[in-house]
């Protein structure tokens, strides 16, 4: 026995043991990728480095034996930095998608691959359950989501993206009609949470808080819950009945909603903080910018957001003749399509950039055009011309695109002297929204120059203790799914707060990515082309004559077809990947060596029992050493030198051509998915 100091503690350890072995014995975690209990120390990954007093530099603990009086530290900042850099180097030549790009892109991180799989099986309840783990509003999101997942879908490389959102709507509708999924709710915590505003952020937060066992009360300023979902999105896109159904699923969990309770009037933050253990605010961004041109106080000039809210409030809205809508976002499109349904003769959207730069969803733009909305690009209003106090025409100036601005979009520049006028009866301004900062400030919130509530260190807590915020009121006008994602994270923070735990930020889902679609070699996806299912829609006449929902939903067969189009991206061993787990633990920066060469090898699927993906190989050599030293077979070995070194079967063979006996030892020892097999699960008890 020898005596050593291990992280400041004197311990008696076996002679001849390595530092790594000793640390394991004392439950001190030292990461390693190349060490294997079946093999002699190899010393290739350099992840297991530790500090030994007196040594010139860090030493590999797997290969360093303890000595009497040795002083070892395993957890200093220097060690962490070295390990992080080591992982960053390994990741810089690790080609694959840990998570499917759809999931990685989804603000709510929904496990799309999984619910598509349940859809294929016809198990729609399970599919909804998977969705609701991260998104409690699938009926709504299935209709109005901006679908960043589909933009990232690798199927784009083959033909068209999987209609993820259509499938989501199908399973949500199915579950709604056949009513089965309901989450398990924890027993009551005895804690009470007040939520201000009944939009997607609050609804999402309340859903998860309720499941966690906290009693939730939502205070809504308007007569009905839903926020922008009700008062911003028109009926033809999201029927109020569907919205009510979804909200009912949340109130069914015991969440109480009190309508007509506006912050600053019927309720004050002070009272809520007194009466509740925690408060959440998700009041959205309901203020709107004015045009800022001469004549904007004329009769006949409306705010897009107010116009849509009046529709939601079922007020009588008088609109006729020629309508000009200024702006390029979804509000502009919603206002335009609503105007058509109200019987306007001609609807024109005036936007200062081109279609490519429009923030509205492509599908919305397409539908608007289809319904007959005119789009006038590269024009901006300079003046509204009136007659008898009423709008008569709008004067615009032509624009051209100049240098890119901070957002990366080209800045529109007016062309001097290019002014022109359009005769018009109504103008709807839809050029941006913001939270109502005056009330927020009055209630004591710290706000930013964008009038949003400031939250701290990514934990969704505001400047006021026990008060949390998410959604548009924090981010400025954004999407429903972002509000939903924020609501869930805020709920987790609130839960931590209620339990007296430390509040901390949320890490992004850790995933190595093959890169953007255009960076990927098409040959990687040799898939049969299968066209995307078309969403059945209301015909044009019916659309314009009513506010009936335009999209009718996929049928079951179509939903199955779409689920079948999924390429099942993502890693075979995702959560069991030791490299990825260390990457998360050490917060490896995956962008550190961005642009550096990554190897791209063909997969070796020649052998039925064991599959090889050399793109994920980290050259730890465990497979080859086991095959050579333990099994005496040598179906795998190191080939090539330098950066090109890789582990391969000899002589350019594939695995099936070697004398591999399929024992699976290599798969079990491989820390990544460079070797994988359904038959042999990964060795989780890695040294």
């Amino acid at each position, binding site marked *: 026995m020898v005596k050593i100091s291990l992280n400041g503690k004197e311990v008696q350890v076996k002679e001849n043991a390595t530092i790594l072995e000793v640390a394991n014995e004392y439950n001190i975690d030292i990461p390693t990728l190349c060490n294997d209990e079946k093999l002699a120390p190899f010393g290739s990954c350099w992840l297991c480095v530790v500090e030994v007093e007196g040594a010139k530099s860090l030493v590999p603990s797997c290969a360093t034996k303890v000595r009497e009086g040795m002083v070892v530290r395993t957890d200093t900042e220097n060690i962490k930095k070295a390990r992080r*850099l080591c992982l960053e180097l390994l990741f810089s030549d690790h080609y694959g998608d840990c998570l499917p790009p759809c999931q990685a892109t989804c603000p709510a991180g929904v496990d799309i691959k999984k619910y598509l799989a349940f859809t294929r099986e016809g198990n729609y309840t399970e599919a909804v359950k998977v969705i609701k783990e991260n998104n409690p509003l699938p009926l709504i999101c299935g209709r109005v989501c901006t679908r960043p997942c589909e933009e990232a879908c690798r199927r784009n490389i083959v033909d068209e993206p999987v209609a993820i959102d259509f499938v989501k709507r199908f399973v949500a509708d199915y579950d709604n009609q056949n009513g089965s999924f309901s989450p398990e709710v924890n027993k009551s915590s005895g804690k009470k949470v007040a939520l201000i505003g009944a939009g997607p952020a609050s609804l999402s937060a309340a859903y998860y808080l309720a499941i966690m066992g906290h009693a939730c009360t939502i205070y809504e300023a308007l007569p009905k819950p839903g926020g922008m979902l009700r008062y911003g999105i028109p009926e033809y896109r999201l029927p109020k009945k569907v919205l009510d159904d979804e909200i009912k699923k949340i109130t069914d969990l015991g969440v109480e909603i009190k309508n007509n309770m506006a912050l600053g009037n019927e309720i004050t933050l002070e009272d809520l903080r007194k009466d509740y253990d925690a408060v959440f605010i998700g009041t959205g961004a309901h203020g709107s910018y004015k045009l800022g041109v001469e004549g904007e106080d004329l009769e006949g000039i409306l705010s897009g957001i107010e116009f849509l809210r009046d529709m939601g409030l079922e007020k009588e809205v008088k609109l006729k003749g020629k309508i000009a809508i200024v702006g390029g976002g979804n509000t502009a499109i919603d206002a335009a399509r609503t105007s058509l349904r109200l019987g306007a003769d001609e609807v024109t959207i005036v936007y200062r950039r081109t279609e490519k730069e429009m923030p509205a969803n492509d599908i919305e733009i397409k539908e608007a055009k289809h319904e007959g909305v005119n789009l006038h690009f590269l024009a901006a209003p300079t003046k509204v011309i009136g007659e008898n106090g009423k709008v008569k025409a709008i004067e615009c100036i032509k624009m051209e695109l100049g240098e890119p601005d901070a957002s990366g979009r080209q800045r529109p520049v007016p062309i001097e002297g290019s002014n022109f006028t359009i005769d018009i009866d109504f103008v709807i301004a839809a050029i941006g929204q913001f939270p109502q900062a005056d009330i927020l400030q009055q209630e004591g919130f710290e706000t930013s120059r964008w009038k949003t509530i400031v939250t701290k260190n990514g934990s969704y807590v505001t400047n006021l203790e026990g008060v949390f915020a998410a959604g548009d009121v924090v981010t400025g006008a954004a999407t429903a799914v972002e509000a939903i994602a924020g609501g869930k994270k805020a709920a987790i923070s609130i839960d931590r707060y209620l339990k007296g735990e430390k509040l901390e930020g949320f890490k992004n889902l850790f995933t190595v990515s093959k890169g953007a679609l255009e960076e990927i070699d098409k040959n990687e996806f040799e898939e049969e082309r299968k066209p995307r299912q078309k969403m059945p829609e209301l015909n044009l006449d019916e659309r314009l004559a009513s506010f009936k929902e335009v999209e009718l939903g996929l049928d079951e067969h179509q939903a199955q077809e779409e689920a079948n189009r999924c390429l099942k991206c993502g890693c075979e061993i995702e959560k069991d990947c030791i490299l990825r787990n260390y990457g998360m633990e050490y917060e490896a920066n995956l962008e550190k*060596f961005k642009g550096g060469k990554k190897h791209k090898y063909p997969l070796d699927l020649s052998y039925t029992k064991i599959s090889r993906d050399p793109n994920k190989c980290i050259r730890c050599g465990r497979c080859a050493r086991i095959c050579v030293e333990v099994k005496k077979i040598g179906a795998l070995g*190191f080939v090539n*030198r*330098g*950066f090109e*070194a890789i582990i391969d079967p000899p002589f350019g063979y594939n695995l099936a051509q070697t004398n591999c006996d399929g024992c699976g030892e290599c798969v079990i020892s491989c820390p990544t998915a460079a070797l994988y097999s359904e038959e042999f699960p990964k060795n989780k008890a890695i040294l």
Partner: protein
Amino acid sequence: MQDKENYRIIVGLGSCGIASGGRKVYQKIKEEIKKRNIKVLLEETGCVGMCYNEVLIEVVINGSRILYKDINPDKVDRILDEHIGKGNVVNEWVAKAEGIATLDDSFFAKQERIALRNCGVISPESIEEYIDRDGYKAIEKAVSMSREEVVKEILNSGLRGRGGAGFPTGMKWRFAKEAKGEKKYFICNADEGDPGAFMDRSVIEGDPHSVIEGMLIGAYAIGADEGYIYVRAEYPLAVKRLYKAISQAEERNYLGENILGSNFSFKLHVKEGAGAFVCGEETALIASIEGKRGMPRIRPPFPAISGLWEKPTNINNVETLANIPWIINNGAEKYSKYGTEKSKGTKVFALAGKIKRGGLVEVPMGLTLREIIFDIGGGIKENRKFKAVQMGGPSGGCIPESLIDTTVDYDSITATGAIMGSGGMVVMDETTCMVDIARFFLNFTQNESCGKCTFCRVGTRRMLEILNRIVEGKGKEEDIYLLEELSSRIITTSLCGLGQTAPNPVLTTLRYFRNEYEAHIKEKKCPAHSCEALLRFEVIPELCKMCGKCAKACPENAIKWEKKQVAMIDKDKCIKCRACITSCKFMAIE
């Protein structure tokens, strides 16, 4: 037939001589001797060191030696006519001769030739000539000594490993001698791989027996009865001469059973390496001999305890071994008179790059870099400005002009950030871009890494990518820090010397020439006017001396110049061939 019994002509046929046309010269002399029907002994020898003067031939008449330089077949007749025929030395072609002063005398003035004592002097394929110069006397003496006495002698000489790391040879022998085991191996590392280094090749090509004798002495000292010379297959002449020398030594029982009647036996094999640089690393070399992939392994155990086939093994480099017989013959004391306190003896250097007299030199430790580069090497080609000298190859570093008076010994060189290394000395002038030099060496090491250690395999690659973008004018400000971060980690987190030293070229250039990195990154300029992507092909009026050389050099007549006027480059005509930049002595074109 004229009786020219004591007339000899020796042609330098090392790789340098052959590359300069030595074989043609040899052939011509052979034909002429036959045609003229004269009795002259025609012999060949290895490299005498003056590679810049090849083809060299030596005419030896009754012991008087005249060395001629720059010989081609057309010059042969005159030498045969005048020198052999009439006894008149052709003075203008003489490189070295007793009693004749030449410009090249200064090349030898400060040299002391111990390891190279026979190179360029004897015929490497003749064991008799080796024996004539005290060859195999040392092993004879050694076997009469005790093994401990031999080890002590080498220890006392202060000889340190000439392969690069400078570990005391006697100490290494002692470890191997004291290691337990019946069977031991003695290996000669002739896997010389540094770009620009050719010391070991020249020694083997010029004097293979001295290496064999050095091995014999070492094997005797540690108790080994079998050995390997691990030599690069890219050195075919060296391999050929080794085989020949071994069979000659075997014939005379310098190799084999009961050598010189003693109970010491030694079997020697040649193992040709397949060209992996990393196989110069001891444990990788051993793996390679064993038929495994040349990949370093964790030490301990060190080879002295468990080496080839897990038996105690000693490995020495070629130059180290070539010194051994001399030390045994002349005594440790005499050897240790050369050199400095901690670096005894002499060191062979291969002078290359922008130096006037490129070649092989052997100098006592303790000379300054200035003496080697300027006094022996004759200074910089085309009288340009000395900028730096790269020592130690890919593991070494660049020593700047400000440190040119550094003495050449292990510790002083290490203090500069470079290393003594195996003896490569690449001289650079103002037209050498230091970022590009770092990139050159890093490219070498990243290709030659065995690929085992993460930091060496991927880290050097990422460093290379950063250097690539810097020389392409796409460097980012944070790149220098990233280079430093990677460098410091790679050095400490690699298993073998290759990785541990790979960042040295980058670190030393960052240390002494950081401004060049910054110029590339911030100003998008290459101060050496060397990096293609950053060249603008414009004349800098303040530097232009209006000499017109550039205009004459331009193959496209793209440069307008008149007397007393600054030259102007017509960019429409310019084909970016760089002829103007090369021709300008004033760095006035960028």
